[in-house]
């Protein structure tokens, strides 16, 4: 098992390489999800403000 992690002495090259691979791809995958939540939250806020304005002023555009 420790031989597996040692990677024949090249561990400090192989494992960081794999780590970068996973970290970058996970960040890439999650990025749109965070953006989406933020956008939908802002959209809901905008709709709520619009509805409130309509209630106060039914004749306004």
């Amino acid at each position, binding site marked *: 098992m420790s031989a597996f992690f040692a990677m024949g002495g090249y561990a400090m090259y192989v494992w960081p390489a794999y780590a970068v691979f996973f970290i970058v791809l996970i960040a890439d995958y999650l990025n749109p999800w965070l953006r989406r939540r933020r956008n939908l939250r802002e959209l*809901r806020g905008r709709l709520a403000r619009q509805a409130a304005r309509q209630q106060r002023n039914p004749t306004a555009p």
Partner: protein
Amino acid sequence: MANWIPLWVHKLSSPPNFYRFAGTLRPWALGLALLTGAIALYGGLVLAPADYQQGDAYRIIFIHVPCAWMSLFIYGLMAVASFISLVWRIKLAEVVAMESAPIGAAFTFVTLVTGSLWGKPMWGTWWTWDARLTSELVLLFLYLGVIGLYHSFEDRRQGARAAAFLAIIGIINVPIVHFSVNWWNTLHQGSTIRILGPSKISTAMLWPLLTMMAATKFYYVASLFGRVRTDLLSLESGKDWVKQIAQREGQA
């Protein structure tokens, strides 16, 4: 619109339809990516024997080569989507092109980093100006240029069209850059180190590599669909179908 395009493709390019389609397909794509990726990693890290020249350090190849391939493949797709978006003005093609760019840039970045980490134990240097790595670096700049241009416009659709045009100019440039960097290497031969990949790749090493290539493709689809869905929501935020989704997620 050309009549040879089947009706379902035409329907698919409408944002709410594609949103649903991509939403259904995305978990499957991610699942396939994780499954094939796990198989590839097991085959590459555990099953495949150590290389007699490079020891265990060669195992970086199992992520380096698929990422390099994807960086070029995605640029090609981006150029095709850009072409479609400029000629036929299809909003979905614009979104696909623009959202492919960050994924491609990510793969290019990983290619460069893993290449550097592979290079240090093998040739004793973190960076070498050999033809392939240098072309990859220029490719990263091309991606960043497209992303930068897209975000510099106030109007997102106009920005997408400008960046699409730049992507097409870029892809014409990619083979030219590769050719010129090759020539440049022959001119300055004394100072560069040639890459010696595994000279003959055994089957035990080949199948994990090919499996990982498939895994990264599935991943690209999964990531792209997620990004396109998010982008469609913000582009179409005035439409009812988006408002419904927003309200539904607010109550959940």
